[in-house]
């Protein structure tokens, strides 16, 4: 469960990227976050995984107040999450396989378990033939799929996906959406920031709309 109470985030003094957001997302929900460019979608995500702290307000994830979390606890918060970053954030010196394996290594999983899971998930995103490639030897869409695989491989309890299909063609987008739905069905709470009306149209779900940092809509179809 994710709760926000009066959350404001101002990167600079004069303007705030998020403004007094109060919001509740239940465990296992599938939620779109939408809004024009610069509305604050990524900022909301960054607050949830603790890369930024809110200027004001409180954020609770599974009942834990993460605005008060000491930074030594942050890694453990993040291990319960799967995050697809808008700019991918792949380790450029590591292969596709190593990138996807990394969150599992962090958690101290066994080697054979890691290999199996990584291979499976890479197969699902259609990259099983590019295990040993470096990220910069991939196309934009392939990089994005590596990022998605890395987020999904940990069976996250919360999945944060920031514009995860911006570089993908409609067919692959459909496949990826299927993966998100499967993860959601298995119990992951999914937050998906997107501009794609097509996507929201094909898979209608609760949609939270931001505009210039303010909550301007919260519609459950």
């Amino acid at each position, binding site marked *: 469960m994710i709760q926000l109470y009066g959350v404001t985030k101002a990167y600079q003094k004069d303007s705030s990227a998020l403004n007094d957001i109060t919001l509740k997302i239940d465990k296992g929900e599938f939620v779109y976050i939408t809004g024009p460019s610069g509305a604050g979608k990524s900022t909301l995500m960054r607050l949830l995984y603790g890369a930024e702290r809110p200027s004001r307000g409180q954020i609770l994830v599974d009942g834990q107040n993460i605005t008060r979390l000491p*930074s*030594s606890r*942050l*890694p453990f918060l993040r291990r319960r999450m799967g995050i697809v970053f808008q700019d991918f*954030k792949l380790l*450029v010196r590591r292969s596709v396989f190593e990138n996807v394996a990394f969150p599992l*290594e*962090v*958690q101290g999983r066994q080697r054979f378990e890691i290999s199996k899971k990584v291979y499976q998930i890479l197969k699902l995103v259609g990259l099983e033939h590019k295990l040993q490639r470096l990220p910069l030897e991939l196309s934009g869409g392939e990089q994005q799929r590596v990022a998605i695989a890395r987020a999904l491989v940990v069976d996250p309890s919360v999945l944060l996906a920031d514009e995860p299909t911006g570089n993908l063609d409609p067919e692959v987008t459909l496949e990826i959406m299927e993966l998100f739905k499967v993860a959601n069905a298995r119990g992951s709470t999914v937050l998906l920031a997107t501009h794609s009306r097509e996507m929201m149209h094909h898979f209608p779900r609760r949609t939270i709309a931001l505009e210039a940092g303010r909550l301007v809509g919260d519609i459950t179809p």
Partner: protein
Amino acid sequence: MLERPVYLLRRALRNMLQSPFLCAASVATVAVALTLIGFFAIIVVNIQLMTRDWSREVQVIAYLDVVPAESSLKGLIEEIAGHDHVQGVTYVSRQEAYERFAERLSQDADLLAGLEADFLPASLEISLREEFRTAEGVSTLVAALKQKKALSDLRYGQEWLERFEAFVRLLKVAGAVLGGFLLFAALFIVANTIKLTLYARRDELEIMALVGATPLFIKLPFLLEGALQGAVGGILALGGTFFLFHLFLQEGMSAVLLATGTSHIAFLPGFYQLAIVAGGALLGFAGSLVSLRKFVRL
């Protein structure tokens, strides 16, 4: 994670393989810095050996106005040799004294041509143990010797000794300042280089943290990598020092050295060799540790 040193080592090695340029930069910097220090150490070690040679000349001379009978002379020598500051006692007869004096005047010795050989007195040359070859040690010995009647006329090159000690002190101060600064420079430059290599990889460090790695998990392979690179740098430095030593000091200078009275220049003793390699590893480790603090928050 500490239970899995093999995993850590594997990650450290992979890191190095995946950024050979950064790895080479650190290793080379450590190697060059430590070669410099090794070279300096060779010089310091050899100056120490040289001054130890020179300090053999620290001695007390007791002039014997009346040459005693052979038996009592023997007793006197044994008595003096019993003092705990004394290493050895040599008897110099009048004839020997004259010959030495003539030798000492070298080219001008012929000026003494008309003189009798016995115008110089016989003497006992008393050498000191190494640890007492100081102005203070000499004073103590002289005070003890003065109590014997036969040894009233003592000479002990006070002036020479003071000069010598001043010279050694000078060398020590200069060596310590230069050496200290060299060490500081090496430390600073290696740390700086490692910081730059980590700076070039700060995205990587940030991403690791974002996908749930603890600071320790991020840092350990880099620390290991730093230590490994440092150790390799240290080994290269040892090789480099030996190469330079062989090329310039040992061979080329032996002719020059004969003229100055030193027989040969020694390479670094084993302990120093070990210290260079261990120092490299420590340098790499510490450099990584300090720099990581900057790039991995917490």
